């Protein structure tokens, strides 16, 4: 049942405990307990809005940075990743299989700011062999949500017997 609760919340974090109780057939107190527990053990990490910043004047710049690293003795990937993800400029950090090791999403106010961050903070970290930056030109879909041009619901016939 926790899975069902999580699915409902993942789809709409603002669904109330009472609504979830109805949808799952669980008592409200039980739903509240499970959510509280999930928040405590970080099964639910956070509730956030998916914002379309393209609509707001203070636009921001994002870039995906491929980072190649040399894992170092006793330090491994994790500690270099940690040095990187602690910077607030990094929004997403993944360890990947393939031709490079880390994929880092960096967000800044201007292209300059992002470029400076990469050249002055990211690249010089010990163990970082090299970086390739890809600036994001357009976001089509994020976290399962189509950002712009989502198809409108077609109007149905109001009554069909």
């Amino acid at each position, binding site marked *: 049942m926790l899975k069902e609760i999580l699915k409902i919340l993942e789809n709409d974090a603002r669904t109330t405990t009472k609504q979830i109780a109805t*949808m799952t*057939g669980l008592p409200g107190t039980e739903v509240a307990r499970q959510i509280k527990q999930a928040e405590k053990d970080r099964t639910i990490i956070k509730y956030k809005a998916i914002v379309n910043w393209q609509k707001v004047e203070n636009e921001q710049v994002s870039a995906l940075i491929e980072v190649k690293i040399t894992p170092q003795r006793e330090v491994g990937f994790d500690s270099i990743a940690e040095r990187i993800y602690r910077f607030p400029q990094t929004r997403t950090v993944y360890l990947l299989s393939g031709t490079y090791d880390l994929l880092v999403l960096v967000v800044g106010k201007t292209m300059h700011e992002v470029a400076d961050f990469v050249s002055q903070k990211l690249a010089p970290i010990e163990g970082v062999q090299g970086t390739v930056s890809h600036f994001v030109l357009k976001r089509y879909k994020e976290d399962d949500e189509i950002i712009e041009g989502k*198809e409108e*619901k077609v109007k149905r016939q109001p*009554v069909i*017997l």
Partner: protein
Amino acid sequence: MSTNPKAHSQKYHISQRANQISPSGIRRFFDLLASMEGVISLGVGEPDYATPWHIREAAIYSLEKGQTMYTSNLGMPELRQELSRHIKNKYNLEYDPGSELLITVGVSEALDLAMRAILDPGDEVIMPDPAYVAYSPSVVLSGGNPIMVPTTEENNFELGAADIEARITRRTKAILIGYPANPTGAVMSRDKLAEIAKVAQRHQLLVISDEIYAALVYGVEHTCVAALPGMKDSTILLGGFSKAYAMTGWRIGYAAAPKEIIAAMTKIHQYTIMCASTMAQVAAIEALKAGDDSVAEMIADYDRRRLVMVKGLRNIGLSCFEPEGAFYAFPSIKGTGMPSDEFAEKLLKEERVAVVPGSAFGEYGEGYVRCCYATSLADIEEALARMKRFVSRHQKD
């Protein structure tokens, strides 16, 4: 519009057969609805999803490739094979793709073909009341007589075998059932279906089973009539894609039946339809091959909304039968003292919520309204809030 309908019917000769089926009893309701704005409709009869993208994409690709020609009358061989495999997986029932399956323009066409293939003038078909609106006309249009069996909330809107048997005459040809049911949301238990099957076998009747909502059951199992012992030979199974795969507008469905019956249906189909739309057939293949996950997701979502709807209706003070299938709730409105068409019209006028009067589905639908929960949660909740105001104003006791 003519002010004198009589003058109109004299100008053109309309066949007795066409005149025999009454126009929808709730025309006025439709007109009223069309003139209003800000209405939340619980009157729809289809999913609120667009067809899953992978299915649409397969059809688009087929158009790009120029797959725009007629197919075989029976339907594309690949589709019949996939369908045969699908039915086998679901019910462990074998239908020969070459002779026992026919792809149709929805269950609607399949129903019409079935009746035309088996009925002679004056033949009788026994069916439940209330039921889907096309059932009775499909019999009448084939020259037959529909024989209604009342079903009630007390009996979970299940069709009783004894009630059927009591109505069998020497003209009875078939029993027509449709579970999970529109408008009640009722699902027939395996045992009750087995009793009906026994009656059919004892009297050598066909069972025509409209299983278009087969996939949409919540916490219970759907029983396919043809899968009951010995029933494959006396069942015309009608199935579709409209509801489960959210494909209402594609107009595609099928019939599975003994080959002599499929052959008769195919004769009619080949002269009236030729074949189901090619594009829709391609989409149906993709649906059968890869649609399971999307269907499962939609079912989970309907189920959540079902619980919200039923609980909401009960909180308002309407008693509501627990629907276990399709996407309809069928609450009783008897406590308001209004007939269902008046209830629906007043609710629409006063609170701008559209529901379908139960009387549209037969005499025994009176006292109920059909509320479809295949609509957004926000709309369901707003509709319930409006209905609550309405019911508390009008509740008699």
